[in-house]
């Protein structure tokens, strides 16, 4: 995993990308530590093997396999961060952050402000989630909007392995708390291997595909769905631009607004349930800034406003679909103002 660049693989998956970031960060700075359930090599190197090899390489004081105690994990990471370490705390599944919300919301997010800038919390929380695995209601939620709504927290999500690596490295080096959301179904997804030292700046979106008719704004796995839809619609003569947010909060307004100003149409897509989601904030900002030039109201795609169900057909129906994305794109094109 720590092989020199000339033998590095041309393609990597998410697990490798995340591992590379942790390994690079830990090699570069002894203040970087990781805490989480099962993350040591004695426990198999993490349930998704992202930390495999690291406890052997860096020792058990830097890779701390914890009890199943989410409050204690995040609390310890907060304390270590204000004392000068750069902890990466792993919460095995995103729904388990509920157990640690006090530490995240009341402490990690606020200690810089409440101390008047005397302390800061350079903490990364890595967590994973996603529907489509059959885990049911308590292991699948996308809760990014909760954190995006808390001043002091940054929220990021990668759509490809190189970005996962680059975002995690930037998050570790950032002086404020960052929540990195991974997707269980994406761990095996292959992508271009990034060069050593590759970083993705926080707060910067990427144009994943250039287009002229409609802008689709997405993050994480939804970017890949948007790209697939864009490719299919190109055959119908519709030119779709896809903006990969990468950082959900604070989102890159400049890039989003510039794209929508150009295309005049926008659709926001996320896996989280649509109602009260981050898509509402993004759509609202577009409406506020570009109302004059918009050719249609901004479309919003998200999953169904119910808990994630277990039964496979129900789970499939719950999650947003590429068909919904293309329908929303067409709706912005077909939109006619009332006379």
């Amino acid at each position, binding site marked *: 995993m720590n092989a020199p660049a000339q033998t590095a693989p041309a393609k990597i998956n998410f697990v490798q990308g995340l591992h590379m970031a942790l390994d690079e960060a830990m090699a570069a700075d002894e203040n970087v*530590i990781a805490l989480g359930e099962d993350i040591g090599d004695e426990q198999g190197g993490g349930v998704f093997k992202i930390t495999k090899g690291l406890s052997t390489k860096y020792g058990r*004081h*830097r890779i*701390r396999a*914890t*009890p199943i*105690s989410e*409050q*204690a994990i*995040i*609390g*310890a*990471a*907060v*304390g*270590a*961060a*204000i*004392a*000068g*370490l750069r*902890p990466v705390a792993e919460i095995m599944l995103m729904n388990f952050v509920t157990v640690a919300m*006090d*530490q995240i919301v*009341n*402490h990690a997010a606020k*200690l*810089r*402000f*409440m*101390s*008047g*800038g*005397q*302390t*800061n919390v350079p903490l990364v929380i890595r967590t994973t989630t996603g529907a489509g695995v059959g885990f049911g209601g308590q292991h699948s939620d996308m809760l990014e909007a909760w954190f995006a709504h808390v*001043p*002091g927290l*940054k929220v990021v999500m990668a759509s490809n392995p190189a970005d996962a690596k680059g975002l995690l490295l930037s998050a570790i080096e*950032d*002086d*404020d708390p960052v929540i990195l959301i991974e997707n269980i179904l994406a761990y095996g997804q292959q992508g271009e291997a990034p060069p050593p030292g590759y970083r993705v700046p926080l707060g910067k979106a990427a144009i994943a595909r250039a287009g002229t008719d409609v802008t689709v704004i997405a993050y994480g796995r939804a970017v890949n769905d948007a790209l697939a839809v864009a490719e299919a619609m190109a055959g119908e003569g519709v030119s779709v631009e896809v903006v990969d947010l990468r950082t959900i909060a604070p989102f890159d307004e400049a890039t989003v607004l510039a794209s929508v100003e150009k295309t005049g149409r926008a659709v926001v897509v996320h896996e989280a349930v649509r109602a009260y989601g981050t898509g509402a904030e993004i759509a609202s900002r577009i409406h506020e800034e570009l109302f004059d030039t918009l050719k249609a109201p901004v479309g919003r795609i998200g999953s169904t406003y119910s808990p994630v169900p277990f039964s496979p057909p129900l789970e499939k129906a719950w999650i947003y679909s590429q068909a919904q994305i293309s329908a929303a794109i067409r709706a912005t094109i077909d939109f006619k103002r009332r006379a």
Partner: protein
Amino acid sequence: MPDQNAVPDRAILLDIFRRTTLINRSDERFRALLTQGKLAIVYYPVRGQEVLSAAMMAALRPDDYLITTYRGVGDQLAKGIPSKLLWAEFTGRATGTCKGKGGPMHITHPETGVMVTTGVVGSGLPIANGLAIASQNKGDGRVTVVSFGDGASNIGAFHEAMNMAQLWKLPVIFLCQNNKFGEHTAFADHTSVPSIVDRAAGYGMKGVKTDGNDPVAMYNTAKAAVDRARAGDGPTLIEAMTFRMLGHLFGADFSYVPKEMTAAGIADDPVPAFRRQLLEMQVAEAELAAIEAEVEAEIDEAVTFAMESPFPEVSELRLDVVAQEIAA
């Protein structure tokens, strides 16, 4: 185990007395200004718990870490936060420890090791482990004390933190100030065991129950726990017995405390008792009076400084949310 009754050096006792007096007179001044309407803040009195905080902090090095709670003014002053900065923060001034942005429940002053003051019961314990992890990894020899009340031992964070601290032999001291009430609920009505220290056994942790109102017992208990943590022998749970002589909040209902209990608490008031003890040890009245006068002068100066200080600029709202200034 060291003798809990061994009397510390005279210099240490006088240091504890100075810290006790500073807490006691500051608490009195806060309440006086509140009563006079010169101050309008939510205030959590520490009357009755002064000796406990003073003796604990006297056992620490200046660079040791402290995490405390909203009822933390005693801990904060005893740990060494300059009175002027503390008063300015309690009154929301730009010159306060936290530029007026934290307030009484969120005092932070890393220069004196006060890293977090939390307004959430029990939340300090997991964070204390993190400070201790940093010390353990860096080998800086610092000890972390996390102070909390009896009510905090019933929240999940307490149990998760105790287990983790013992598991990793962290240099942390869990200081439970058992003042016999969790908000308005008496100890026996909120805790399933006769003593919080009994819970230490559940984690294989060393637990010591002590009289927090006795400066000698409290100091010796604190010192033993500090030495133990510093030596790498792991955490200690201290249950220091005391009595909250006033309500949960300044001005709050106190009728739920049985009259006999209040009377006994007043009779056992640790502050005059400590003074008598020092006089019996042949410390001169004049020496104690001089310490008290110095403390009063320090508080006078701090109150004036705070009241004359400006409030923070509105632009502060955009600062310290994250490292970079946020958009207006």
